[in-house]
């Protein structure tokens, strides 16, 4: 089946078999390997992408379900000149160690900040609750998300 969707602002299409997941479509057909395969069953969140504004586990969604919809992956955040505020604060605070959880973690955080740029710690913890990190202990990740939120809301207030 042909799946046509918008990925990071670009129309892309691929011919895939019906049982293909969105994660496989992204990684193996569109060469977007940012979203990772961790647990394969919805536990770890490292495959998280945004579909029509909502974070989902791409390992548990059929590629066909994303047809005609807008998908944002970690590759869609930075431009060649500018990192996304989340990427900047994650880097500044050293919020990642091995980095495997990073793409999913940052995408979940983006889904939150796009709706709510000034979240409470509790809201951040809740938004990231479907993302596991085996290295950092989460504290710096949460600080980085709060900092990025502050940067994003100041930028919005200025513009």
């Amino acid at each position, binding site marked *: 089946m042909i799946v046509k969707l918008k990925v990071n602002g670009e129309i892309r299409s691929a011919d895939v078999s019906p*049982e293909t997941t969105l994660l496989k479509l992204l990684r193996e057909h569109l060469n977007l390997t940012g979203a990772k*395969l961790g647990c394969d069953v919805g536990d770890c969140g490292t495959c998280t992408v945004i579909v029509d504004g909502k974070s989902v586990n791409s*390992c*548990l969604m059929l590629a066909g*379900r994303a047809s005609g919809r807008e998908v944002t992956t970690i590759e869609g955040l930075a431009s060649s000149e500018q990192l996304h505020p989340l990427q900047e604060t994650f880097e500044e605070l050293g919020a990642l160690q091995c980095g495997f959880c990073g793409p999913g973690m940052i995408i979940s955080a983006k889904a939150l900040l796009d709706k709510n740029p000034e979240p409470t710690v509790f809201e951040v913890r809740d938004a990231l609750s*479907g993302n596991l990190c085996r290295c950092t202990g989460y504290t710096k990740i949460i600080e980085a998300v709060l900092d990025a939120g502050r940067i994003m809301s100041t930028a919005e207030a200025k513009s």
Partner: protein
Amino acid sequence: MTDYMHSFDLFEPASVEEAAQLADKYGKDGWIIAGGKDSFDWFKDRHKRPQAVINIAGLKQLHGVKDNGDHVAIGAVTTLTEIEDNKLLQKNFPLLTAAAAKVASPQIRNAGTIGGNVSQDTRCSYYRDGFPCYRAGGNTCYANTPTAMNREHALYDAIRCVAVTPSDTGPALVALEAEMIISRKGKIRTVPAEKFFIGPAVDITRMTVLEKGDILTEIRIPKKWSGAKHYFEKIADRQTWDFALVSIAMVAKITGGKVSDVRVACGGVQCTPRRLTTVEDLMKGENVGAEMERLAKRVAAQGAKALNYNHFKIPLMGNLAARAVRSLT
């Protein structure tokens, strides 16, 4: 784990009627999916390999929340996030929005549906791992042997199978006296939530009355409990994506300091959500307070039969019942 599923034919029906026809045509070789969160877990473990997968998530007819005067109707493919965020439900039935908000993780609630949540299969790890147990058509229960790990399993009605209901919204819907609307080949039937969930005595291979070919189209909640006091709590080993060890859902009406009506149900203690009728009976007509709390705690788990590793669920049920009562003061 390699992000692999068997090859299947995928159908995207344009109407409930077409979905029902497909479900009927393929019978045991067919499988309905909505969010797919439970289904793909089965497919990826390769224990279930249906030939035809019928995706109903795109059916607009089955989507959304409507105020129909004497009841609120929730389409079966409405996502758990949409339920959590819905103003009408927040206002009328905060018990349900609280329960929906406790399911799994934000990502799963964003795509998982209420229809899938109540229709999902049990999470007994032996059964899910493909052991040929009674539920899978075999002739033994692997979770109820002297060495089995069964701390997550049932305290009640364990007839051959000791699996429990995994659904967080189930107990809330039972407490709220919801009705499930089921379509089969154009015929519609209505089943009370309490009868929708079935135990092993009725059919050991299913968790609900749904048979192949049935489509749950809508869940209706009567306004009877609109505005009632409510309590929901879920105890799990982890705060996220973990299934309830025990959960409690209560709605209660208080008039002049006395409980005029109440319904309480627990998840995680038997194959279906369990009504705590003894707790309800002792509460009705009585003053809320410390004495009611003490009694509720004492009787909540009456009749429970623990397995080797799940004794802790007995005091847990008592404590949850006590906390539910305390929330009324």
